[in-house]
């Protein structure tokens, strides 16, 4: 199977100035498609992968386990993301990746990725830019978890996920599926499960959002952005995709 048209290619066209020949090179890149059930480990910390994976469907998270066995989810990935693109140049993976939902992933060998990068500086630059944006998202998450209170933190997270999912066509109006358990949400936000519950109640009480059965409904986008101290610049999305 080849790379084809997918959300990642759309992302690349938004964040780079790739021309038709380079886009065609990426489109014809061979991909090995594999299906994973929810909760599957894709890559383990310490692995030395020879391929990177593109999410075609489903949700994937990065995860780290502390010495005392507590889990932190430092990043969440959706269709169109290539979570371990950095493994192309960092030979040892420093974080694990697992599926949150059943997922369909496309694997591309590092040999193939290096080949297209060597042939085109524009492709190299575009892939570099994607990893830089991943870095920007990490910085924002660090700020969010380190310095914002729980309600602001969760509001910010919902704003981000809404825009990222909308950019790949996975929203329905102001609603979207966010199939995280409250434990996952707590692990991503650095909050206990009980605190996540209470914070979701608070945001619902403020008529900002509703979260039921893995589905988020934003009740007031503009107020949620203010509540979440949310400035989407770091996502580097198409400017036309930034309004609610």
């Amino acid at each position: 199977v080849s790379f084809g048209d997918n959300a990642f290619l759309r992302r690349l066209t938004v964040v780079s100035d790739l021309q038709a020949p380079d886009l065609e090179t990426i489109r014809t890149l061979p991909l090995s498609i594999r299906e994973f059930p929810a909760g599957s480990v894709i890559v383990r910390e310490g692995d030395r992968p020879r391929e990177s994976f593109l999410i075609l469907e489903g949700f994937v998270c990065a995860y780290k386990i502390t010495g005392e066995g507590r889990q932190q989810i430092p990043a969440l990935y959706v269709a169109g993301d290539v979570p371990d693109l950095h493994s192309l140049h960092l030979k040892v993976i420093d974080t694990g990746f697992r599926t949150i939902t059943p997922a369909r992933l496309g694997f591309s060998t590092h040999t193939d990725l290096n080949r297209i990068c060597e042939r085109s500086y524009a492709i190299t630059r575009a892939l570099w830019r994607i990893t830089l944006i991943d870095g920007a998202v990490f910085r924002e998450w660090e700020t969010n978890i380190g310095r914002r209170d729980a309600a602001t933190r969760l509001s910010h997270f919902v704003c981000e996920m809404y825009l990222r999912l909308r950019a790949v066509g996975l929203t329905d109006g102001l609603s979207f599926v966010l199939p995280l358990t409250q434990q996952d949400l707590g692990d991503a936000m650095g909050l206990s499960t009980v605190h996540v519950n209470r914070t979701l109640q608070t945001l619902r009480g403020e008529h900002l959002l509703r979260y039921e059965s893995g589905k988020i409904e934003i009740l007031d986008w503009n107020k949620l952005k203010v509540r979440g101290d949310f400035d989407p610049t770091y996502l580097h999305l198409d400017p036309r995709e930034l309004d609610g």
Partner: protein
Amino acid sequence: VPLFFFRLRDERGIIHDVGQLELSGLRAAAREVSVTLGEMAKDQLRSSDDMELAIEVHNEQNELVLIATVRFDIKTSGTVFY
């Protein structure tokens, strides 16, 4: 695995059901309560100099099995401008 029900008493004394969790036992429930109260206290103290929060934990028979309270206030001497 036992199921525990968590109720928060906020600074106005209002009780909120804040979810239920399957946990290995009372020690795990106490750990969840401690972490939660610590996080909530940190948030509240950003905007207030005093706070009192409590979490009650009930078992599946609706018996109160644990209650934890965290209280913080600042007292100054009358001679200090605050």
